[in-house]
Every structure is written in structure tokens, then in C-alpha cells.
């Protein structure tokens, strides 16, 4: 998960992969390729085939239908919003967990991983318990006239929950590794804490952070279970892309499902590729 590690070192340390190919190695390589092919390539191929078989025109029609466009727009808005919020709070949480020592630090540190462990469906259920008709916060939201459940706020909350750990888990190791001495040095040179953060600490964090952002965004775009529980899936209103795909399958509109899936896949894929390219370029600069 470390963004900076891209060295291809062989066992002899020369940087070249070794040339000996024993039978065992051939078998291992074959196994890996078969596994990756089965798990990664075949579904993508099937999806491409399913989306494009009826022709590009049909694909375009499916993608530009009002429902599809609405779903895509909602997904992107939710994804960007969740990413933005989780970057801000993720940075703060990572900072506090690394730099401050307080009672319950370990507990918080463990809880951060909760979204990994808890099924998104359960996360959705928890939100229903909080904001549902008889929920804990129901009276509060009613008093404010705020509609949370089956509307965008609960969908955002669900997305926030499932994508919380990524920024934290990417930033924390970097923060631990750079230590505090550079900052102390900056202080003695006259830099304010704010300036020190932006000029000294942040530049060291940026790659970890960017990696965390792309993972957060990818996760948010693909979220299904939690959002399904809390959105109500109203066509054109609270239907995200993944819910749209799900409904299309239900309606036996396979073309619509494949097309939307392809669009989502392309977005996520280009996100990750963009990261790789950026990383390469900065590594060359170093």
C-alpha cells in the first residue's frame, strides 16, 4: 500500500529479474496468470462484451438515458463529497492518532478499521436505527425539518462510513515515519505551526494522501450495500449508479446494466492509472 515502493528488485539485488526458469517457476507464473485471468480479466471482458455487443449506438443510448445520467451524477456528487469530507477528517484523525497520546487512543485506532470489518449492509442498518422513524435522532431531525433517511444525507453518511479508513490508513504510516524533528526544526527557524504544516509536513504526506484519496473515491463510487439500505432507491432521485445497475438486472435490461458498469469501471480504472502515472513522474523528479 506504500505509494513510493515501485522498485523491481530481483533476489540478486541488481534490479534485473533473473533469467533462470525452472519448471517450478514456470508453474508458479502459469498459476498466477490463470488466477488473475479468471478473477480479473474474464469479468472485464464479459462486461465489455455485454456492453458493446449491441453496438456503440445502443451503448450510448443506454448511458445517456435520463435515469442513467441522474444516477451517475448522484454517484459522482456523493463520491466527491464523501472524499472531500473524509480527507479533512481523515487527516485530522491520523494526525491525532500519531501525534497525541490520550486515553482511549488505541481504542479509536482499532475502531477506525471498523468499516473494513462491518458489512456495508449492517452499516446501513445502523443508520436506519439512528434516523428511522423510531430512531435515536428522529426527534432531532424532525424538529429541524430535515429528511435524512431515504434522502441524500443518509446516503452521504453511509458512503462516509464505508470509505473512512482509507485516508487514515494511508497517511498514518507516513506521518509516523517522517517523525517530528523536521517540524521542530521549522519551528525554531521561525515558522508558525500552520506554515510548518503546509510547507514541511504536507509535502511529505501528499503521496500517501493522494493514494488514500483515490482509494476513498473508488470505494465511494462503488458503494452498494449501505446505500441500498438507506436510499430507498427511488428512480431519478435516490438511485446511484450501482443501484441503477441492480434495478436494470431486475428489469432484465442487461444492456443498461452492462453499460453503466462499464462507465463505472472506466472511471475507477482511470483513477488508479492516473495515480500510477503521477507517482512515476514524481519519482523520476527525485
Amino acid at each position, binding site marked *: 500500500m506504500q505509494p513510493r515502493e515501485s522498485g523491481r528488485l530481483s533476489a540478486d539485488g541488481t534490479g534485473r529479474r533473473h533469467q533462470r526458469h525452472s519448471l517450478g517457476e514456470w508453474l508458479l507464473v502459469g498459476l498466477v496468470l490463470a488466477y488473475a485471468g479468471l478473477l480479473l480479466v474474464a469479468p472485464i471482458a464479459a462486461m465489455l462484451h455485454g456492453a458493446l455487443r449491441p453496438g456503440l449506438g445502443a451503448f450510448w443510448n443506454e448511458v445517456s438515458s435520463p435515469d442513467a445520467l441522474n444516477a451517475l451524477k448522484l454517484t459522482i456528487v456523493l463520491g466527491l463529497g464523501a472524499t472531500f469530507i473524509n480527507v479533512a477528517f481523515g487527516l485530522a484523525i491520523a494526525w491525532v492518532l500519531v501525534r497525541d497520546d490520550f486515553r482511549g487512543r488505541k481504542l479509536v485506532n482499532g475502531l477506525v478499521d471498523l468499516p473494513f470489518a462491518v458489512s456495508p449492509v449492517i452499516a446501513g442498518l445502523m443508520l436506519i436505527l439512528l434516523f428511522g422513524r423510531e430512531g435515536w435522532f428522529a426527534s432531532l431531525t424532525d424538529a429541524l425539518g430535515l429528511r435524512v433517511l431515504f434522502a441524500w444525507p443518509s446516503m452521504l453518511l453511509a458512503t462516509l462510513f464505508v470509505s473512512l479508513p482509507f485516508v487514515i490508513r494511508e497517511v498514518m504510516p507516513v506521518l509516523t515515519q517522517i517523525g517530528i524533528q523536521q517540524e521542530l526544526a521549522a519551528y*525554531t527557524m521561525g515558522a508558525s505551526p500552520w506554515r510548518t504544516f503546509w510547507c514541511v509536513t504536507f*509535502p511529505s504526506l501528499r503521496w500517501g494522501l493522494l493514494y488514500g484519496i483515490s482509494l476513498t473515491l473508488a470505494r465511494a463510487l462503488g458503494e452498494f450495500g449501505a446505500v441500498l439500505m438507506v436510499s430507498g432507491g427511488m428512480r431519478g432521485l435516490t438511485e446511484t449508479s450501482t443501484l441503477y445497475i441492480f434495478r436494470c438486472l431486475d428489469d432484465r435490461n442487461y444492456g443498461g446494466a452492462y453499460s453503466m458498469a462499464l462507465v463505472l469501471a472506466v472511471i475507477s480504472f482511470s483513477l488508479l492509472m492516473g495515480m500510477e502515472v503521477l507517482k512515476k513522474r514524481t519519482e523520476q523528479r527525485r
Partner: protein
Amino acid sequence: MSIVLKQIAKRYGSHVIVDDLCLEVQDGEFFILLGASGSGKTTVLRIIAGLTRADSGRILLHERDVTDLAPQRREIGLVFQNYSIFRHMTVTENIEFGLKLRKLPRNERTRRRQELLDLVGLSGMGDRLPGQLSGGQQQRVALARALAYRPKVLLLDEPFGALDVKIRGQLRRSLRRIQEKSGVTTILVTHDQEEAFELADRIGVIERGRLLEVGPVEQLYFRPRTSFVATFLGAGTVVVGQVSEGKARFGELSLTLPDEIAAEENRRVQLLARPEQVILSDDPRGPGVVSLGQGRVIEEFFAGSHRKVRLRLPRLPGTRQLAPQPPFGEKSLLVDAVVSSSESLSGRRRFVGLRDYHILEAPPRRLLVLAPEGRGSGSASPLVRWLIRKLDASAIRLTVLEVTEAGAKEPKVEARAKTGNGGLEIRTRKGRLVSEVMAELQESLYDMVVVEAPPEKRFFSGAYGDGPELIDRLLKGSDLPVLILKGERERLDRLMICTAGGEPGKQDVKEGGWLARRLAIPVVLFHAVRREFESGPLTRAHLERAAATLHSLDLEVDIRLREAESVARAILEEARNSESDLIVVGRHFPRSRIFAGEDVTRQVISAADRPVLVIAVEEWRLEIPDVSAGSGPKL
């Protein structure tokens, strides 16, 4: 005055890190704070920099009180041990960082940066990133960066610690040159004596948060005032003697007392001779102002430009050797010297003389006497009064601690020196007995604790108030010798040192011997043998060495050996038989495996009807010579 520290104190919890430290550093001076790791030196530096807040005291930089200022506003330059230069900035950006903060115009910045790159010898490397520089070069950048904005004070925290020896030497020379050129007042913190000798205008030696001695390098090396500095800084021979008829007496040697030491009879003094002050000669009337007699070279090390030799000489009667630390069982005088490397002296006999020497005052041992609970010091038992009378020489400083219930408005700690009873100090603390005693031991340095045991026999049950708990805590929570007074004795006439049950017991012998020497009473050396554990020859060798150590303290020694099933019972019986008034036993730390099932120490304390002196035995410490005494720098 560039840097003034006034009574700086810092503690974490009850742990004292810096204790009432005062220091003045002159303009343009290169000052080195030298201390072992954990001595508090780095904390002092961080307090000056403003990175750590002192609990009390003031910090003045160039007559400006900066105690409450943030580090940003103190105008200091700081270089850490680890390369703290900004990893994502080029050398140029690093150096200009402080200048940009001060909004210097670009051409000014460029000029200053060029100047500094030249100064630290990195011209032409401005575009490099830290990853492309060696460790030494990175530290040069850190130095240039810290100097760029012309700070008023430069602080360096073991700047060469992470570098290899050769680079270290080069950097040291350039640092000295750069410091002289820039004229900036500098404090460097290090544990490396060589570094301190080479760089410092003045050195301050810090130990356990206390600044022991400050002075020019040569003064600290040749004429230290404290025993710690004499043994910590460099190698040398240190022997303890005493003042007699206005002279410093070390056996037959009678030397003129320096003016700063009062010619008080029996005051203890130390003789310090550095290796290069020792002259070896074939002629009994060889050169040198003082002759120590004839000795044999027992150790020799080739050190390139010279040879280090150690000689064994007949002991100076009535003296005790501190350095080089005598091995257990050694009763001769050991003297370190340096000779030319061209000729080996191994095994030869030579007359030993001193070209020069230094006499310093021996530090007094500090004893803490705990006044019995609720009674105050006035009603101390006859034995305590006898001990106070007997020990209250110039060599020992006694403090009596009274702990009383906390009163809301009164000061928590009160100290008053009682005059007329020779420097006896009485301190009063308010609060719970156990915690206040432990706090007192943390705050001041003591060498021994004297506590009166409560009359109850069942000691460790905890059913009798604070008394037994206190002894329990003293045994577990401090590594000081604890003298537990039991029974109805009014004086001590004989002391029994136990080296029982296979324990090494070297520390018992040393500490017990010290007390017997101060009280001028004879010693019984007792060894309880457990057949299944011990080998006869080893035991005898051990006892012989113990006896030799005691003889070297001029003590009368009576050796007793006895087979026993229960070691504790044997100790108690032998104490009765030999009419010993005090039992000296070792106490093992919990990790010791020797007494896993049977805690002899506790059995003895619980069952004894006479005083017991408990000595901490740290197994590892016995094998590894104390770092602070002896092993000095390469000469």
C-alpha cells in the same frame, strides 16, 4: 551574556530530569554540555530552544527573557542528531527556508545562500535533494540552514552522533572553524568526551539533571572539583585519603593541601593523577615530585601513538581506590600510565612517580534517616543517635526526614539545617509516609537510607500501618542500601557480612566494608554453604577475594563458613554466635533466579532481632565495570 539559565527545573511525574540548573554562556563562546545518556542534557537544550517547557526557572537570551516565548520567537538555530533537513526540498530551498520566512529579497537570499554553501563546503550542490547527499553533507546543510538567518544562539544536539568516525573528525574541525568565523554563541550537547575536548571553550558536566562542574577543558581535566568529573572525564588514578595535621595524607604520602580545601582534621580528600602525569623509571629516586614506590606492569595496550599500561603497586595504607575501579579481591594499588609506543613494558618492574597531581575534596556520603512515624527526630532511638554521632564527620552528610500529616496551608517540604550538630539537616514533608519518602529519594541524591523498623514481627503482611509497607517499597523501589534498625541496641560493635547461598555478594562486601570502616568496627565474613549447590574451591576463592577487599579497607576480618539447610536460619544463628550487631545481606531484584523459591533477604529481615543492612545486588552490574568510573577516552 548570550545565554543565561536561572534555576531551571523539569520533571516528568516524580522523575527529576533537570534539577535547579544555572548556567551562563558568554558571547561567542563554544560551550559543551557533556553527560552520559539519560543525564538530562538534551532536555536542557530543548528547554533553551523552547521545544520543552521548564517547570520553573528563567531563560535569558541576550538579556531578553524568553521563558514564555514560543520557539519561533527565540531566534535560535537548532541542529538535531538525526538529519532533520526537509526531505522534499533541495539544499537551496532548505537553506533559504528561514530567510523566506523573514521575507528577505531574492538577491539577498541568493547571496546569503552562496556564502553559507561556501562556508560549509557544499558550493555547487544547491540543486541536490537530501536523498542525493551523504550523511555528513546532510548535517552540513542542517548547519547552514540553522545559521542562514543569523540566529543569536546556535544549539546542536549530538550533531555528529549518527556519522562514522572519520566524517565526524572532519565535521568537528569545520564546525569549530565555522563557529569561530560566524562568532555565534553555541551550545553543543554530547556524550563524547573527545568531541568535548576538541571543540569546547568551556565544558559543563551534567549528571542526573545537575550541572556538576563548569570550566575550561584543561581545568576540568587536570583540576576537577568533584569526584564524578575526575572519574567521568578521561582516565586516571583516584585514591581516597584524608586530611591529617594540615596535610593530605595518602598512606605514607603527605601532600600539601590546596588552598580551596579547608584543613579540617579527618576530612576526606582524593588524589587524582592522570596517566600522562605518571612517570615510570628504573631509578628509585626517579623524576617526579611524588614517589608511589615500585610496581609491575600488569596490563598493556598498544594504542598507536602510545601505549597504555596499568601497574600494580603495594597499597597505600589507610586509602581506598576509586579509579581505575579495582576488581573484586584486588588489594594492591593500580596505577594507569602512558608510555611511548616503541617499547613494550609488559611484566616489567618500574618505579612509579608523579610529575604532577591534583587533590580534591571527596564527596560526602549522604544518609537519609527516616524519623519514626509520628514521633519526630527528637525522640530518635539511642542507636540512631549513636549512628548520628559516630557518622557525623565531614565525610558524611546526614538528613533526617520527618513526614507528618498534610496541613492545607503549610509548605509541603520544609528544610532547616540544624546547627550545633555539625551539618545535620532536618527536612519535613507533609503527606503519606510511603509516597513522601519515595519522593524525597527521587528529589535528592542519597547513598543510604536508615529506617527504624516497627516493633511488629510480621513484616510484610501489611497489617501494621505504613511501616512495613515502607520497608517493602524501599526494598523494591530503590537500589540504595537500606539499614533497618531492629532490636534494642545502643551501639554497634561488630558487623557480619553474609555472602550466602551462592550469590556473588560483591556489593555487600563493598558497602558493608564501607560502613564498618566508618564505624571502625571489626567484620565477620560469613558464608552459608548449601551442599547441593556449591563447589568448595570456588567458594574458598570467593571468600579469599572478599577478605582481600575488606583488608584493603583496613578492616579486621574473621571468616566463618558453615553448612546449612536453611540459609536464613544459619545467618541468624551465626549472628548470635559471633555477637554481631548488624547483619549485611544482599537483596536480589525480582528477575534473579537464584532465590526463586526462597527469599532469604525477607526471612532474615522478618526474623532478625538486630539491625539488618540490605544491599541491592544487580547481577549484571557486578560483571560490567561502572561506566562512569574508569574507562576514559582514548588519550
